[in-house]
């Protein structure tokens, strides 16, 4: 691939903010996105921006009592587009951005900060009920159904007396029909646990030695195919989730990507083999996963085991000196992307030539 054929990452629009931004998300089916964060005075903030004439226009600013750590549109319908957020006090809220005064749904889900949130079953992504999963510093991972008040529909927690690990990231996957669904959770000690929501059991677990910063399935709504886990020490792992070996689990390939923590990984919604990682030193890496010739083989005992493929770097850029805290691809426009970084900036990026890969 010549230099000109390579995808280019363009910093299209940049905007400085007057608060610490933790998360940003595209509003589905629009040219708008929300940013969530923390005012210096200790309150939470949600801002709604729209791209207009090559610039960002602030449409709405909502201030809330507690700093907001994370948000998702994953469990809402395209018509409603409610934003689900988790805040520093452990509250899960669902907001109607048109009328944000009172949350549509509110629950004190966790005792401590909700670090991470993910949704499935909305936006036409994932069969089955709309559900939200939250992971918290209190060590629990809870699954919520917006139709059920107060109580989670599933709760994954350590037994009494066990050490509580800080859950840093959660991701839904395997939602290819009404019954199947898994939640994958990553913890500060490097544990990755895969919970099967259909059987209510722990399906698989592993440890990648360093804290798991971000997890994502390449697709939520297909039979588990790949899982990318990024770690505190600059590595990321790609697991082939199609073939589970009874003892060895899933095959994986790892790659040292950044010089410091890989904060986020996000797969391109239009092509599951491409993903972007966001590094601690303000860098972005665009990767492509290539499958091996045979995705599974028989081990010496004739048991099937997966074979990991390889990853290749397509492009990398450095945007800032500060960590990039969040990243989101536009579900509607291939190659359009937003990211927020700890230098209080939000950027709209364009990645070119993605359709040629």
């Amino acid at each position, binding site marked *: 691939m010549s230099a000109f054929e390579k995808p*280019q*990452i*363009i*910093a299209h629009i940049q905007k400085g903010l007057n608060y610490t931004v933790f998360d940003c998300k595209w509003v589905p*089916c*629009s*040219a708008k996105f929300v940013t969530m964060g923390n005012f210096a005075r200790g309150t939470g903030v949600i801002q709604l921006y729209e791209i207009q004439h*090559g610039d960002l226009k602030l449409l709405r600013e909502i201030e809330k009592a507690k700093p907001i750590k994370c948000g998702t549109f994953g469990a809402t*319908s*395209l*018509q409603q587009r409610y934003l689900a957020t988790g805040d520093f006090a452990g509250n899960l809220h669902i907001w109607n951005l048109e009328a944000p005064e009172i949350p549509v749904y509110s629950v004190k889900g966790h005792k401590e900060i909700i670090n991470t949130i993910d949704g499935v079953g909305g936006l*036409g992504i994932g*069969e089955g*009920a709309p*559900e939200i999963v939250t992971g918290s510093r209190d060590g629990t991972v809870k*699954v919520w*159904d917006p*139709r059920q008040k107060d*109580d*989670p*529909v*599933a*709760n*994954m*927690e350590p*037994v009494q007396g066990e050490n509580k690990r800080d859950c840093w990231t959660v991701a839904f996957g395997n939602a290819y*029909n009404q019954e*199947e669904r898994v939640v994958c959770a990553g913890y500060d000690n490097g544990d990755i646990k895969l*919970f099967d929501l*259909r*059987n*209510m*059991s*722990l399906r698989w*677990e592993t440890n990648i030695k360093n804290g798991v910063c971000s997890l994502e399935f390449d*697709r939520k709504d*297909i*039979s588990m195919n790949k899982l990318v886990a990024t770690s505190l020490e600059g590595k990321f792992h790609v697991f082939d989730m199609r*073939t*589970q070996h009874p003892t060895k689990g899933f095959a994986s390939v790892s790659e040292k990507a950044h010089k410091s923590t890989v904060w986020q990984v996000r797969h391109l919604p239009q*092509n599951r*083999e491409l993903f972007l990682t966001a590094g601690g*030193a303000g860098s*972005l890496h665009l990767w492509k996963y290539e*499958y091996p010739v045979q995705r*599974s083989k028989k081990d010496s*005992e*004739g*048991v*099937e085991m997966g074979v990991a493929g390889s990853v290749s*770097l397509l492009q*990398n*850029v*450095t945007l800032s000196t500060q960590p990039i805290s969040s990243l989101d691809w536009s579900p*509607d*426009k291939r190659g*359009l992307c937003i990211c927020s970084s700890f230098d209080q900036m939000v950027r709209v*990026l364009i990645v*070119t030539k993605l*359709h040629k890969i």
Partner: protein
Amino acid sequence: MTAKDNPSLWGFGTTKTFKIPVEHLDFKYIEKCSDVKHLEKILCVLRSGEEGYYPELTEFCEKRLKGLAPESRALRKDKPAATASSFTAEEWEKIDGDIKSWVSEIKKEENKIHCHETETFPAMDNNLPPVRGTNSRVHVTKEKYSNSRRPKKKIPRDYAEWDKFDVEKECSKIDEDYKEKAVVKNKSHLSKIETRIDTAGLTEKEKTSLATREKEKGNEAFNSGDYEEAIMYYTRSISVLPTVAAYNNRAQAELKLQNWNSAFWDCEKVLELEPGNLKALLRRATTYKHQNKLQEAIEDLNKVLNVEPDNELAKKTLLEVERDLKTDPASKTQTKGKRMVIQEVENSEDEDGKDRRRAQEDGSGDKRLSSKRTEKNSNGNILGTTVSLTREAAEPAGAGSAAEPRAMGNIQKKLTGKSEGGKRSERGASRRGRTPGAGVDKRGRQRAAAAVAASNATRHPGSGRGAGDPAAAAAPVPAATLGPAGLKSQGNELFKSGQFAEAALRYSAAIAQLEPAGSGSADDLSILYSNRAACYLKEGNCSGCIQDCNRALELHPFSVKPLLRRAMAHETLEQYGKAYVDYKTVLQIDCRIQLANDSINRITRILMTLDGPRWREKLSPIPAVPTSAHLRAWQPVAETPPSQGGDACGRPQPGVPDEKMFKTLKEEGNQCVKDKNYKDALSKYSECLKINNKECAIYTNRALCYLKLGQFEEAKQDCDRALQMDSGNVKAHYRRALAHKGLKDYQKSLNDLNKVLLLDSSIVEAKMELEEVTRFLNVKDNITSFNKEKERRKIEIQEVSEGQEEEPGRTSEELSTDCPASGKGDTTSGPPECYEKLPITKPNNAYEFGQIINAISMRNDQEACAHLLAITEPKDLPMLLSNKLEGDTFLLLIQSLKNNLIGKDPSLVYQHLLYLSKAERFTMMLTLISKGQKEQIEQLFDDLSDTPNKHFTLEDVRALKRKYEL
């Protein structure tokens, strides 16, 4: 600076970080160095500047590294993000314009959705699945331990457990586990993907995005090689919104899977929606090519080339098709999908109006062509005999493109007409001058057939009159003047030169001459049939080939060639199951036949995709091959004594018709048994006995049929008769034992089995049966179910010693599995059956219970489960289930209560339900079960309330029902 100040100038220092000799930081060294790792280190040192700052050297090192390993991590550099200035004005215009137009477009879309918001919202909500069960907890660490504990449990902890420990059982259990897991992993999700998407209450925009998304999922699956999955997603996409791209892509995926027919229909669909779509035309050409409609393929390819004269793929395919057409116009669909290359999966449609117009012009040209062809063909006589597969595909084409399908039909008729040429010698004669050796397949397509041709050539060295002189063979000789042997050798010559139709004609004539001669010429006849089968196979007349192979095999069971040919014909007809059986049989005779080995591998894969993991169960049994057949395989000479045929036909043989009749009937009977058609087999054997009632084997064979049909009394009588003739007949004893067992006369059964073992102690089935029968006699037995699984595998080795007797298609595998089944068909359901299938003892602890339940649920054996429930105290149930109550277990319990126990003992059912509700994971279970399962439970309760009983009242039932949240 002196050398002292800077140690690296001394020339023997090393760098600080990697301890690289300082000399290595040198142009010459770097130029020569090819160790990527080392270069990376050098680069790192150079960049760090700790040994000094050498920009040129650093750059040089980078270049060198780039040349060696362009992907090297050391070459990754921090780059700033691109900006407008990184592009040419034109490029930037494009990128910027693209985003701007998208922004304005999406805003319009958004407004549209906004309008819809209120109307469509409720419909969405109704479609949603119910809320997951309340607050189900998964304890992370607990689960972890229970997971790791499971394998540990297999090791017994005290002596008592050692006694119970059954190594084989555990082994087989591990096998089962693996099997199951492997299955779950690979394709199981495919069947669970809904092929339709409910689009009720969705806006157009939502539908479009949904369809696009599904299509993209399909593309991704396609790109990673999961073609079945890709087809699923394309189908889903089409179910939401039929688009040209989705159809086109599905066609491509189907081509990959070699589903020519479905691919064809998808291409048709595309062309209907968008006439002249190049990709669809190309793909349709490929399907034509593989369905051997070469003319149509050429037409499609020409259409493509008209629009895009430089289309490499079309050119290449066209060349291939033309070559096919030249070399072998009548050859059929031996697939060779590897060559296909229409790879790219498109994302959007890019056809423009111009293309479309041109394509339409082509279409009209095509019509002219086809009408010409129709005229040309109208005077050719059409034989209504063979309807080939491809013809079927061509016939039911849509009315919209009526002209084309008609043309196809004609072409097809023409082709089949040609291949039928064997029946019309004058037509065949006109083609006689064709290239000799065309039939020896250069393309390696029908390798086997080619090999056959070659071996035929070697096997008849100068046998017939015409053999020495190919010209003589080719000359039209009146068939009647030649003897069968001469005809055969002529046929062989013709076959060698690729004139299959004529060859078939010769063989037919030879057969016609030999047929009345009776059984004496069975060998020759068999070969003739087999050879004619080869001709038919070459011509693509698969059904004819199969028929001939059948005949050949009747005359000469277990000869390799007809079996191989039949297998190939079956494979061509996509009757993979039968093909598999035939290949397997061949391998039993001679395991070195590479073709069979390859084909088995291929077919296994196909069958697995077709029938899922349980494909083996759908196969008909693979016949056991008698050892004599093995011997014969090594003596190919014996198979063809060419001169013998002529003598045989003249020899008068007294009593031959009867004997022959007897033999054919018997073989037919055997064939029927092979095909599991026991009724017909029965009548055949009975006919046999009318002719000759002195043959012991017929009685035993008929007994087998009776056994299969569950007529144990008759079976017993036949065995008795057989034993009168031959008191030492093992089979008769064995079958009588089975009959006795079926009649529940276990004592006699036991006696017979003992006799069997006395006669031949190595018969494992007998041992097994003995074990089983003893178990019936003595119910208290501790052996669990997995034995059977294990033993079944063992039996296969047994076959050879078993197969000595001339007994058709009866593998010992069948013996072990079918007999209990036949017993079941005859007797009423009751506890004994449960024993028969699965020995169940009262479980004492949760572990034992779990084992039994696992075994039962593996077979989904409700009767056994019912029995288990019958012998289990209801109040023990929560204890036995412990925390292992799972969805399928629960369902199994409910089903067996509902189907098997409710009629017998409603109070027991009530008790069980009551205690089941007290089991540990019960409430969670309830939240997890699906609607259909809930209905089953509801039915059970309805049944329960319908059968009032003194042990419980309606009120009780209602209370319990509430517990079940109904």
